[in-house]
């Protein structure tokens, strides 16, 4: 079976761990435990004729205390930049991380605008968002809580990487 490494990156508290948990175990918790280091998880995705095993690297939130570690990206086949639509800053930080990533790798990047179950509370306009999305392979509006677009995002990645 083909295995692919996929990294989740983004500011702290945007829901990287929650997205992985939702996708792998199908559960969501309101409790916030900040991640330290990396947690690797896996799930097999069934494609039309084949299977792909995604190795998901949930990387600790990147903020001013904890810098970007390009080493974790090594060998990744794709990465997801996760942002939180209730915090404007999370998109700025996400884009910054994205640019840092681009210095070391040119694998496909996905933008996840997370917490879609909550009201939009950032000041980015539709146009601005569309502009930023151009830098990514695709943009998903996800919710780790309701599961909205979570499976479709990872399935999209599996398909993208397999073919």
């Amino acid at each position: 079976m083909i295995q692919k490494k996929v990294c989740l990156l983004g500011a702290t508290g945007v829901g990287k761990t929650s997205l992985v948990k939702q996708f792998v175990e199908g559960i969501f918790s309101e409790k916030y435990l900040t991640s330290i280091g990396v947690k690797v998880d896996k799930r097999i995705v069934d494609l039309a004729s084949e299977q792909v095993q995604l190795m998901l690297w949930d990387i600790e939130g990147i903020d001013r205390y904890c810098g970007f570690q390009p080493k974790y990206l090594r060998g990744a086949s794709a990465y997801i930049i996760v942002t939180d639509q209730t915090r404007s800053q999370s998109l700025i930080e996400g884009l910054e991380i994205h640019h840092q990533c681009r210095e070391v790798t040119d694998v496909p990047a996905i933008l996840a605008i997370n917490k879609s179950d909550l009201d939009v509370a950032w000041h980015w306009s539709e146009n601005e968002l569309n502009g930023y999305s151009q830098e990514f392979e695709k943009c998903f509006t996800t919710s780790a809580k309701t599961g909205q677009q979570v499976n479709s995002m990872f399935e999209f990645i599996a398909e993208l990487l397999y073919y």
Partner: protein
Amino acid sequence: MDEESNNNNMDAKQQQMDQLRALLLGEENQQITGTVKKHAREIVGDVFSEALHDRQEKDGSVDQVIIPLVEKSVERSVSNHSEKMVGYLYPLMGRLIRKSVSAFLTEFLEKTNELIENSLTIKGLKWRFRAWQAGVSFSQYVASQTFVYKVEQILLIHRETGILLKSVSQGHGAADADMVSGMLTAIDDFVSDSFNAESENEQQHLDVIKTDDFSLVLKRGPQAVIVAAVTGNMPQEIANQLELTLEFAHRIYDKELASFKGDTLPFEPLEQQLKECLLEELRPEENKANKQPWFAWLIVLFVCSLSVTYGYFWWNQNELKIAIEAIKNEPGFVLNDVDKSGLTKVKVTLLRDPSALSVDDWLLENDISKDNLDIEEKRYLSLAPELLKLRLTKLLADYPELTVIWEDNLPVLTGELPNAKRQALSSKLLALPGLNEPLNVMSLVEVEELDNRGENNPAILKALLELNIAKVDSIQLEFDQGQSGLSDLAKEQLKMLANNFQTVVDLADKQNLSLGLIIMGASDPVGGREYNQRLSRDRARAAQKVLVEQGVDPGYLNAIGLGIVESKTTGKGVRKVLFNVVYFDSD
């Protein structure tokens, strides 16, 4: 504005104070200040801390003065005495780093622990208990008990992606090995980043991760990492073996490793090579000279004496049980159940034939005391030959004319009896349990009166005729499917039939009756109607032929084929030859 006027005010006041002081103290000013200075240290010392505190409280100005001072001096210390400072800070920093690293590792270690524990077998349960008793971790216990060392699992990991290429383990495989691989790679990345060594080209890496339970030994190649999970004390041997295997993997799979896109299939054949790394060394059996504590001996003694007492009872009870079980060999007894009850008693349930020995007699005969026995007895009729003998002897007490010959447990009676008595005996024999063919038993008993009175008494003659005709009519020959040949049994039956028929002919002659024997062949429906018609007739004729050979006058015989005959009740075909004697008055 307020503050400024306040300050001006203060200055004015200060000037006034100085003037006042000059006026009051005059020339002694010098002397007094000298005295005050002399005691200044004492005076200030007494209130220094309090004063600092009050002032800080009042306007926070102490901080402003002191902080820059402290910062400057710390800066100077750090730059001048960095070695010393690191020494001071290290214990603190070390603890912080360790804490964050350990949080990082915990989950990983849990996974690996699971991995190792899962790979152990059921005997692990016993060890788990012992480990718990000894207060050490399970893996540690296992390692110390079984092995000097043991390589539990080998992982071959693609270095760049952290994807598990192939893993082998002792016992059954572990499902999470691929997650562990990823995390191990992440940890290695983390370590090489966080503990960067001074020299640029010599990066630090994990070589061994040691925990209380096991060690993870890592060997790095340019493209792949090999990891061994080892319990116990690892010898150099393992490291060498790992290196060899890693080199081998690089040599053979150079291209696949370099162009690895996530497909691990090409690395399957490495299984054998990796398995060679699953080394272990069993701990030699040691004779531990254990000192047993005295109270343990006391307990042992107590337990021993208890079990001796108990054992004595148990033994007695067992002996009794074995002894009583022998009753099943006695004819006319069936032992249903023998069970211990309580500490000494034995409960027995048995069946006894009324003609057999009584239980008490049997016990007496076998020298078994009744004291500890609890016997429940039910009646039944035994078919054992011994009992048959007993019953038959009892029955024959009324027939002194007869003698019994035993042939293989089968009685054969000889002698002569009047017909009535013979009939009575035969019905008694029929009622006798255990006798297989009651009438055969009597086949040699002659009927006395027959010759004396038969000729004269037409009624008896008629009855005898009927009896013998019935014998002939009752005979049936069986055939195999589609066959008209006679079996040995059939030939034997025909011989007997010829005899019987001769008797019938004689008796009929005496009574002036004409006779005929109809021989009827029948067949089952397999094959066509016509075929079966012919087959049934052939069967009848075959029987007829043998009868003629046996001396029966063919004039009496009439063989016919019935064709297909099916039993209405069973629906099966009848592959037989049947006989029927017909008679009528000659005149």
